[in-house]
């Protein structure tokens, strides 16, 4: 297993993908949060509570939860490129025990996802305080709470990376898998949230669970307020964490077992 993990690390670091991913994390963390903090939520449309309030500060950071499709897409991209370039043949020649290969990949991408999350969270913290200073505002949440929130977001990013790996291993085809991951996480869930009836399931979907984990009620509340339906009640942060853990386990199981019997013709 150790050999497989070393091999997968070498594979991950052999292209510029990891570098591009960390650049994206910086752009979304420092860039996006910095801009939002600089503009100030009171100037959003519709206007939201300002950064000096707890709700406003949580809103600005919680938006990062909606960028989780990005690490998911990187996970999918990396796994499916093995199928696309047929290196999966060589990989399974060297390691015919396919579930072990996928287990090693999950371990490597868990580390990769955490690195992505750490860069996202670290640069977001810089962006938040720098943006607030530039805007001449304070941050309405204590530093410890900001750190806790960003820590949970970082872990959520690792979870989404593994979700992406799982879907990639299941689907195999790179374009199809990327469309599925980005389409569902970026478009599918927000649309689901607006469908009466279907939105009852939203709190238990990955996006809803992430929002619960980050205490991000504003978007779902705002949407519910504009529709003649009842408000969506997110689960508690702890339940949200458990739901995400459940998805991680499902993704891991899918990733490990999906390629077992597939013919590589």
């Amino acid at each position, binding site marked *: 297993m150790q*050999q*497989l993990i*070393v*091999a997968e690390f*070498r*594979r991950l670091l*052999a*292209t*510029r993908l990891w570098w591009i991913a960390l650049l994206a994390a910086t752009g979304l963390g420092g860039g996006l949060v910095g801009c939002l903090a600089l503009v100030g939520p009171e100037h959003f449309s519709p206007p939201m509570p300002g950064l000096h309030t707890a709700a406003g500060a949580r809103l600005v950071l919680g938006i990062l939860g909606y960028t989780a499709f990005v690490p998911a897409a990187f996970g999918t991209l990396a796994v499916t*490129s093995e199928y696309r*370039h*047929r*290196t*999966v*043949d*060589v*990989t*399974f*020649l*060297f*390691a*015919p*025990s396919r579930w072990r290969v996928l287990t090693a990949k999950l371990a490597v991408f868990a580390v990769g996802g955490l690195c992505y999350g750490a860069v996202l969270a670290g640069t977001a913290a810089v962006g938040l305080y720098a943006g607030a200073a530039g805007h001449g505002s304070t941050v309405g949440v204590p530093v410890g709470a900001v750190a806790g929130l960003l820590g949970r977001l970082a872990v959520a990013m690792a979870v989404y990376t593994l979700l992406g790996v799982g879907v990639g291993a299941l689907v195999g085809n790179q374009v199809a898998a990327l469309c599925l991951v980005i389409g569902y996480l970026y478009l599918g869930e927000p649309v689901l949230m607006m469908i009466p009836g279907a939105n009852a399931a939203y709190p238990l979907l990955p996006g809803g669970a992430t929002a619960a984990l980050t205490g991000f009620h504003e978007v779902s509340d705002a949407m519910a307020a504009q529709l003649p339906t009842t408000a969506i009640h997110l689960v508690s942060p702890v339940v949200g964490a458990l739901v995400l853990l459940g998805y991680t386990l499902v993704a891991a199981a899918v990733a490990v077992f999906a390629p077992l*019997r597939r*013919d*590589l*013709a």
Partner: protein
Amino acid sequence: MTGVAVEVAGLTKRYGEVTAVRDLSFVVRPGAVTAFLGPNGAGKSTTLRMIVGLVAPSSGTARIGGRPYRSIPRPSSVVGAAFPGAAVHPRHTARAHLRVYAAMGGYPDRRVDELLDLLELTGAADRHVAGFSTGMRQRLGLATALLGDPPVLLLDEPGNGLDPAGIAWLRTFLRGLADAGRTVLVSSHALAEVQQSADDVVLVSDGRLVAAGGYDELAATAGLPVQRPAAEPAGLERLFLDLTAQRRGDDRCNS
């Protein structure tokens, strides 16, 4: 090097309606180059992929030194396999690609340098594979297969896209591997590239075995001059066409 034989028994693969390989049996011996011949679509690639466990047979078995590939503890040290179109990420360098699989097989990085030298890729080792010629890709595929210094080599169309010089190089290379006692099975739909170096022949058509045996023996049966190559460059080609034509005739009678 002690020889390791490859034994295929009753191997069959069905893809829905299509039967790619039917009840195929043959043995590949060590110390010889065995040409695995047949027209496109004859089932050669499917057979090779079943031998190494990439494709699951519908029935039948393939054994290497008496064991199925998937139950060999460190398979890359027993069998080296290469499939056409070198399976390499185009943004990897040749060295990075080999280092991934050296780690996976548990071989030292020194082995990567040795193989880059052996396959004459040292000068291109740190270039992205996207810019490689077909010949360079084929050699990188060979280098990957040889990482574990395996006694058995299974090469699917290794001559594809090679120029005459590349084919001559390949022939010498394969001969060297066989002379060192290795088991070398090389598939091809183009005969010229293997005929001068094949000791044995396994001929398939439409998924079935048409003929198997020593080249000289088969050539004698078919009434071809046993004297090999250059003098009679069309020899194996004629044997191939004759035998597959016969099989095609049989099929017509059966249906």
